[in-house]
């Protein structure tokens, strides 16, 4: 049995009077690719943001390995450095070159020397299939390239887990493939990932496990074969029939 990397227990989150997440629990094992699907506005992105505490949950607990990270006294910066986050809108630092986007965390958070940071960054650029673009600024790159730089930025920190928040939703259709390809390779290499996505092809072929979220709860969870072929709930079936 693989080691548990992340454990979420009875998580709740409200914005004002609207409860977005209504008690969610699940676990992620080392090396696992967990894909979260579901209709828009069902709290999938919020869930990711509650995991690395970019949003603080109202109730419930989150563990990274054996550390409870939802406690208030924990050094959340140190925890976040070991959880990668890939945003839908890339959020690359606009004033820095691609290379510096990847190096800045190494240098300013981990305190690694420039030379060593460059070495690590160059390696990560290779992993995401970039090289020549290193000295370009984000605005000079295509969306697909920007998203791959942002994946490299996350990878460089050598995280225990990477959270992907709809990484291809802001991309032109012809650029989606290059980003998914990088993610497929990461999954093959055994990177532990949680991916919120509407890319059902990716979910079906890459996920070890799929969570279907609807209206703030996990309606069902299981391997892709089960979810896609014999969904237990009507709402899952309905969602899948609409999207595929």
């Amino acid at each position, binding site marked *: 049995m693989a080691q548990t990397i992340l454990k979420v227990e009875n998580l709740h989150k409200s914005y004002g009077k609207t409860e977005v997440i209504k008690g969610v629990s699940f676990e992620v094992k080392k090396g696992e690719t967990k894909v979260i699907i579901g209709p828009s506005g069902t709290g999938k992105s919020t869930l990711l943001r509650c995991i690395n505490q970019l949003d603080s949950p109202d109730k419930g607990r989150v563990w990274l390995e054996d550390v409870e990270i939802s406690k208030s006294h924990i050094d959340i910066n140190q925890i976040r450095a*070991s959880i990668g986050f890939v945003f839908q809108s890339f*959020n690359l*630092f606009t004033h820095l070159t691609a290379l510096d986007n990847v190096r800045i*965390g190494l240098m300013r958070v981990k305190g690694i020397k420039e030379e060593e940071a460059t070495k690590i960054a160059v390696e990560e650029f290779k992993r995401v299939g970039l090289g020549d673009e290193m000295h370009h600024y984000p605005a000079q790159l295509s969306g697909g390239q920007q998203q791959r730089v942002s994946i490299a930025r996350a990878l460089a920190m050598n995280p225990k887990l990477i959270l992907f928040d709809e990484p291809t939703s802001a991309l032109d259709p012809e650029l989606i493939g290059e980003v998914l390809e990088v993610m497929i390779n990461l999954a093959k290499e055994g990177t532990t990932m949680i991916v919120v996505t509407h890319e059902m092809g990716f979910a079906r072929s890459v996920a070890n496990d799929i969570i279907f979220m609807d209206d703030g709860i996990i309606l069902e969870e299981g391997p892709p074969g089960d979810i896609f072929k014999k969904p237990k709930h009507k709402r899952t079936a309905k969602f899948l029939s609409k999207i595929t």
Partner: protein
Amino acid sequence: MGTLISIELAIAFLGLGFVVGLPLAVGEVYGNKFVKNLTVLPIVEFFRSIPALVLLFLFYFGASSLNLNFSPFIAALLAMGFRSAAYQSQIFRGAIKSIDVGQMQAARSIGMSRFKAIRYIILPQALRISIPGWSNEYACVLKDTSLVYALGITELMRQGRYIVARTFGNAILVYVVCALIYFLVVHFGVKLLDFLEERYKIPGYEIKKVTTRA
């Protein structure tokens, strides 16, 4: 001589304004209610709402009646420096607020503290955006150095008056020369700031605004 003193005064006012204004802006955007309502806003409101000449008199004559005897220069520095800080803080605040929240989130997501995120991610971008507004403030402060003439500092304006008085000279000629000097100093300062703006612009950024995610 007077010109140099005017320039020195402007640099001192702008310098103090920058050093105080930047933290004020950061405090106003990121500070808690206490910082914002009890420190930042009162300072900004006070120095923005009172005419420069009144501030100068308050810090010089007003302070001396409270037995705080500032030299004319110190009084002028406090009055005009903090006044500039109040204005500069609003330039920086606007720039900071114009930066996408995703920048802060991304910085925090790789483990930066709030302070580091502001220092390494937010401010480098905000300061670039601030240059055009700041160049306006530079022009205002430089011209307003003429007001400290009222405290007896021999800057360009007072020097001009001396010349008029001493030589029974042509007032129009002398003041036109003064005006020309102000004009040239402001002009070249603004050109320098334009150059900095160009030099530090983010490559590709202007294009991005037009083309992506329309």
